[in-house]
């Protein structure tokens, strides 16, 4: 399985990077930009056939290491990959 993980700041947490990018876009003339939020994108390949088991592992990875749950939240998509036989 392959997981695509999106990590973003929780709503209400100030995003200074997003704000700086928004200002820069405004300078460039993109006057329609209302808000910019910067996050992280990770692709993780898991050598696990069972989608439910893969999902459990991905969730644990997100909770333990990949996100700072105080200020960040995550979502993910799971894709089936050709299984890697060891």
């Amino acid at each position, binding site marked *: 399985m392959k997981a695509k993980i999106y990590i973003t700041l929780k709503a209400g*947490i*100030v995003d*200074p*990077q997003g704000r*700086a990018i928004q200002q820069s876009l405004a300078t460039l003339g993109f006057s329609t930009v209302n808000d910019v939020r910067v996050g992280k994108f990770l692709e993780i390949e898991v050598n696990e056939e069972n989608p439910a088991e893969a999902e459990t592992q991905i969730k644990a990875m997100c909770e333990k*290491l*990949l996100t*700072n749950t*105080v*200020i960040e939240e995550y979502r993910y998509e799971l894709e089936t990959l050709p299984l890697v036989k060891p």
Partner: protein
Amino acid sequence: MNWGVIVFPGSNCDRDAAYVLTESLGQRVDLIWHQETSLNGKDAIVLPGGFSYGDYLRSGAVAQFSPIMAAVKDFARDGGIVLGICNGFQILLEMGLLPGTMRPNVGLSFVCKDVWVKVENADTPFTRAYKSGQVIRLPIAHAEGNYYADPVTVSSLRANAQIVFRYCEADGTPTERANPNGSLDNVAGIQNAAGNVLGLMPHPERGAESILGNEDGRLLFHSLINAVPVRESVQESTKKSRKDDERYRIIAVTQPDGDR
């Protein structure tokens, strides 16, 4: 006292901390490589400043799972003294040994300068050599020192006097202007509820010798030292040119230049 300074790949204030403790305060120090699994009976642990693991993912996020950190966690849970400076503070937050988290500085700049810091709580093992409300000068050098915690956590920090250091003006007033990074409530350093774990963003080890123009940080280390008499003259002991290896032991199965 027998101190351990944990060394991660990317730590860069480990030697500074060890230097102050050994040369200035006459303490016994081991530098402990992060791949170790035992603290071997230390009295206090320092998590030094720097950029452990290049600040990958988030500052301190990867370092919290270094092999030695399980022992540090147990040590802290058993009441052992743990001092986290700068990146060490960030690691303590990631580990959950201290509440809250760090955000990037407001303004997104790496801020490197001397700031005024008020000792809000002088009734801790880390600050008892200071006077309550004393304003001290310490250097800061970080990009992620913008402390944040949810309102419930903040009110419990306040209620338990866990906010130990705050950024302030020279007269001690904690203003927005004196806040170098946007930190909530001007927080510069906090301790845990039990009072044995302290994290702070300013660098006391970089302001601990008169020859460097600042001794304000020295009292923090001095606070932690009970029975061991402090050496009178720093200059006297530093006259002898000695190699690092003779000054303090480096504890590592694999040498720091090897397996990372």
